[in-house]
């Protein structure tokens, strides 16, 4: 558990740095694109495809971070109304489903990445696979962050029950 949270905090920092670099790059690319078009009539033809690829990276890396920062949107009005004893089992079921999806996503994301590596983008000589690489690369830290969160939640629930269900 401790090893996992240490690994996760390192992962978090690395992903954060990557995202900040992508952020600055996207702002600069779009802004310079505007300037070049108006001042010199030049357009960066690959800007569109590369920006879209980076947006996919932002989406999947960010979705991993959002697990850690609890930023994902869910609908928990009903779950919070269920008595604690039953809720424990529902939470377990929920966690298993999420993990299963993420594992399937990693596997098939990787497969799509392999399949599209031979395809080239239209405006720049980069493989389309780079776009799909974001799926497995995002899903793996998502799995790790998620396991940590689920274990923490489970531990705190167990503690609550030890103390006779008092909050």
């Amino acid at each position, binding site marked *: 558990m401790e090893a996992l949270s240490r690994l996760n905090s390192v992962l978090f920092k690395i992903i*954060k740095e990557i*995202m*900040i670099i*992508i*952020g*600055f790059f*996207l*702002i600069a690319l*779009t*802004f310079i*694109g*505007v300037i070049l078009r*108006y001042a010199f009539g030049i357009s960066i033809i690959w800007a*569109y495809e590369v*920006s*879209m690829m980076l*947006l*996919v990276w*932002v*989406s*999947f*890396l*960010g*979705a991993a*971070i*959002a697990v850690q*920062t609890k*930023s*994902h*949107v*869910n*609908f*928990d*009005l*009903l*779950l919070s109304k269920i008595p604690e004893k039953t809720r424990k089992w*529902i939470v377990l*079921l*929920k966690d298993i*489903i*999420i993990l*299963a*999806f*993420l594992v*399937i*996503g990693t596997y*098939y*994301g990787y*497969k*799509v990445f392999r*399949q599209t590596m031979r395809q080239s983008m239209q405006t720049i000589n980069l493989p389309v696979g780079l*776009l*799909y690489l*974001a*799926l497995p690369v995002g899903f793996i830290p998502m799995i790790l962050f998620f396991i940590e969160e689920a274990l923490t939640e489970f531990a705190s629930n167990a503690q609550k029950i030890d103390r006779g269900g008092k909050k």
Partner: protein
Amino acid sequence: MSGTLIVSFLALLILSVPIAISMGAADVIAVFVSGRFPLETVFHSMGTGLSSFILLAIPFFIIAGEVMNSGGITTRIFDFANALVGRIPGGLGHANVFASVIFAGMSGSAVADAGGLGAIEMKAMKDVGFDDEFSASVTAASSCIGPIIPPSVPMVVFGASAGVSVGKLFIGGFIPGLLMAIALSIMVYYYAVKRNYPRLEKFSWKYVGQTFKRAFLPILTPVIIIGGIIGGIFTPTEAASVAVVYGIIIAMFVYKDLSFKKLREIIFQALVTTSTVTFIMATASAFAWLLAIDGLPMKLAEFVSSINMPAWVFLILFNVIFLILGMFMEALSILIIMVPVVMPMFQHFGLDPIHMGVVMVLNLMIGLITPPVGMSLFVTSKVANVKLEKLCKAIIPWTIPLIVVLIIITYVPNIVTWLPNLVFGVSSK
């Protein structure tokens, strides 16, 4: 296949699985059960679902709003607003609404308004003797103007999902946003007279001039964004990038309010927020694709047309349903899920998607200030240090002026469509 898809999605949603993963897992289950496609197709379409340049405007407008949301800049805007409208009975209440209008022109989200600017507005109001609940209610209610007046993150999401022009949606929100401000100001006036709230001693052009000079650079931001889009100089995404760079320059180098470290944090947070939206869009695109294979949106539209409902009844139902959805769920998720469902219906009733886009977003923004799930309400109650239960009660009368505006723009579509049609011509693309 649609049956499995929808049932598993709803089941997962009730289990409180995050919306994005509920959709993704439902996609996997439906494809697996039907056995008609290999599972790769689901994940393949998650990548292609995001290929829309306009989506890049989401992080940019969030960054622009946050960069401008530092204490120094918002105070300048608020002081200028107060100089201009502070003499009207209700004083700072009107300044609160008017400052939100200006801030709406640089920020795309209601929650940013309720947080940063809201803190300054509420402190100023408290200092001169307004009660906390009133200040918090005005702040929360006026934050709804943010995503109606351009730029607007929800309208980017609507435009991307519906395939209509975001520039047109933006300009379409301009007049409705001003109407909301007027409606809220009438409400402030009403309470101010009833409760004898303080106001500025006197109106002075000199003070207006002084504060305008101090607020000039930030106020230029909405001019650049809205002017640039109306003038056809920028696409919304480009306007957003220009606003970010302009904002960084004035906040960092002119006012020295923003450190590089803070900027990095802002960009990081904005990208994470964006990802929670685009991740849903990615899994939703596979979802929409599977529904479309079964022709479900068309079947639904056919069903609606078979019961022979007049358009005005549809509009009532539409507003009631989206107001209720907005009370219980997060606004952007609703847009992503529901836009593909309602678009064929708009077509059936001959409704302009630009008009309906603005109506839909306004519905959901009212949902931001209504319990049980109201993001602006949560943020405001935290910043104002008012108990959530108290604010939930205090906010109720403030939804009335907003709902009046909603009814007006629902039944007088020209209020929305007149300006964009004037600027861009009539087609909706």
